[in-house]
């Protein structure tokens, strides 16, 4: 149970607010299932789940950062950069293909964490810098994005993205695992408690003697590393280090987190909500496809409208709480 839950426990509105995304999700699944017989199939949902898993991993880190009252705009670029690094390092074997990108991502996270935690710069600007920097680095490594490194066809690394256990894609399994761990970390460890405390009142947290700086550094490292992992899995799925991915991904992640009922002001939030938020985004996208007939521009309008509706509902419910 989350800290926010604790304080809201019982109240129905609180419940709905926390699981509002889940509610809408179920609703859409039912409606979609009734409307299109090709929608609620194991095949379709299976594919969606795999495609959603990358954003899910990123959004997990984003949730933690946002709970701590910060924000991480660099995830999209770090995601792409890690993909390229993974594909490149695959030539030295699967282990390298995983470790190299994670190490670099973590390093970027550390740098950002120090700037936010120690130098007390605004996370928005710091991670905006990270966004530009990682993207630039990526282009530098690929001679202005002209080279795409391929993962050796037989490399075991590919399994991380393409393999499946009992019909469930490996990325999906990774997501499940990470969200269980993430849930425990956020709701049941001192680190998690500190995140809530810092998000809820940084000065207070400091005066209470909580290690504010190290916690912040930690959470940015975490976020970047998860983004790195997502990029790595993606490279494994694509079999190559594509340079044009991850643009604007940070906004999707933020949207998912907020739809999941986490407040950008920090101090409250839950990873379960985020997962529902991610799922919601992809289901909406697929339903738009199933309905068909929208051209790309109309699609944008529709997604915008849906976003407003969901968030407004979300907000009204959470306000009903107070």
């Amino acid at each position, binding site marked *: 149970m989350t800290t926010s839950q604790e304080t809201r426990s019982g109240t129905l509105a609180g419940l709905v607010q926390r699981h509002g995304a889940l509610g809408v999700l179920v609703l859409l699944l039912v409606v979609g299932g009734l409307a299109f017989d090709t929608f609620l199939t194991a095949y379709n949902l299976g594919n969606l789940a795999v495609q959603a898993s990358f954003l899910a991993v990123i959004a997990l880190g984003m949730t933690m950062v946002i709970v701590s009252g910060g924000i991480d705009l660099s995830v999209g670029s770090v995601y792409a950069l890690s993909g390229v690094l993974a594909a490149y390092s695959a030539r030295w074997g699967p282990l390298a293909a995983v470790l190299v990108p994670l190490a670099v991502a973590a390093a970027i996270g550390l740098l950002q964490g120090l700037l936010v935690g120690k130098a007390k710069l605004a996370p928005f600007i710091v991670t905006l810098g990270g966004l530009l920097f990682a993207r630039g680095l990526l282009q530098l490594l690929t001679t202005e994005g002209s080279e795409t490194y391929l993962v050796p066809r037989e490399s075991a690394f590919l399994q991380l993205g393409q393999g499946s256990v009992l019909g469930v894609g490996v990325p999906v399994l990774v997501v499940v695992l990470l969200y269980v761990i993430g849930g425990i970390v956020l709701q049941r460890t001192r680190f998690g408690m500190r995140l*809530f405390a810092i998000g*809820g009142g940084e000065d207070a947290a400091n005066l*209470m003697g909580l290690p504010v700086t190290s916690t912040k550094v930690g959470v940015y490292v975490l976020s970047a590393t998860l983004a790195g992992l997502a990029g790595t899995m993606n490279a494994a799925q694509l079999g190559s280090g594509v340079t044009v991915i991850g643009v604007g991904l940070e906004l999707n992640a933020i949207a998912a987190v907020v739809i999941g009922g986490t407040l950008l002001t920090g101090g409250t939030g839950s990873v379960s909500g985020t997962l529902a938020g991610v799922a919601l985004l992809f289901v909406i996208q697929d339903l738009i496809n199933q309905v068909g007939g929208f051209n790309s521009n109309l699609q944008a309008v529709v997604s915008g409208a849906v976003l407003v509706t969901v968030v407004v509902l979300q907000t009204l419910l959470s306000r009903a709480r107070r």
Partner: protein
Amino acid sequence: MSSSEDMSEEPTAQVVLEASGIRKSFAGVHALRGVDFRLRAGEVHALVGENGAGKSTLIKVLTGVYQPDDGELRYLGEPVSFARPAAAQDAGISTVYQEVNLVPSMSVAHNLYLGREPRSRFGLVDFRGMRRDAGNLLEDLGIDVDPRRQLGSLGLGVQQMVAVARAVSTDARVVIMDEPTSSLEPREVETLFQLVRRLHERDVAVVYVSHRMEELFRICDAVTVLRDGRLVHSGPMYEMTRLELVATMLGRPLNEVRREGTTAFGGDHETGSTALLRATGLSRRGVLGAVDLSVKPGEVLGLGGLLGSGRSETVKGLVGLQSLDAGVIEVDGRTVRRGSAASAIRAGVVLVPEDRKAEGIIPHLSVRENIVLAALPRLSRAGIVSRARQDKVVATFMERLRIKASSPEQKVNELSGGNQQKVMLARWLAMSPKVLLLDEPTRGIDVGAKAEVQSLVDDLAEQGLGIVLVSSDLEELVEGADRIVVLKDGSSVAVLTGSDVSVDGVMSAIAEGGTDE
């Protein structure tokens, strides 16, 4: 405890915490100009001084929030320098800072145990255990509140008790309390004193900051007086009389001080006949039952009651800052729209809120801007503000309330707590209101300023304002008020007039109010 026979043996007790030649200045302001401070094991040490004397700053230096510009710290004989509050706490110094510093969005239990949560196997936080411990701790300290409640939903008084509970629940060698009682009721104050005694018996050293003289003399063994960031006196408590202490604090001759009573309130005022403000049946589910009250011109109406009895809620309701389910509010017989701050202000009803930090000041704005904030529309033509008029108003009130700031342009969050409170008063007096609602107006204000505020309240009443006074300082309440409405569990249970307006009157009213429910 604070009796002379204790004292005779105390001096030999070991010095736990010692500061010498501490200097600390902020942009432009010298908060501390070479202060020495010595704390012995098992003593309860009063740290007193006017607002802005440097008490909180000294405490923050002692506990690693600020690094001193100069001077030395010794803890248990060893020279130390605490980089962060965490360091001081690990060393065994636990602190209740002046402005309640807890996390409002988290539960009471979490706030009590943040950073030291009980952990089950696999090092996971054990919520059940935590809630149980929290429950016991609170009960043990006689604080009746559900540990699962979100802290922010509680009254300031309760929050303050939680902060104290957190501080004393660690086995610290030194406990520092910066104005822990500023919004506590007599009942809670007693509980607090019990705690302090226990600490004393456990040979824990306590630093105790308060502007309530009587408290100091009840529980303190030693006293250190600061004035303008300088040490002006340090010694055993029993050597001083209350007046001497006040005199040294203010740096004014004894006889001058002697003339002022315990509070600066005059007698009763002759009040108008018809009610200026009348409220009937104010209610809000879960917070207010049914509150009736009325204020006549020139009258000071007191609101009595225990923590969480709904006094703050009531006054907030009166100015439309607390939405009400039912109730009628009339000013001069005309009904004011419920739940609309604007119309309340237009009707001339204003509130100086209880929680200065959260509801009062705009931290990054200057003293000037904070004072004129509400009056801005009046001080401007066609939406263009006139600086000249602002400065006039600001000058008037800074002078009238003796607001201590390096200049009107100093950031308000750099002022001492007391001076911030005066800025709040100035903001609303600048609106020249008809009815002035004061929620804990002298909270955290030093004796001098307190007296000023109190006599100010008198003057305002003389000038025909209607005043509603909420104060957790019973003495102040009964001295100041002409009539007292006693609240209990969110309903008005009694109206005290004439001779009933006394500490006992209020106490018994609260007690009886209980019986007849």
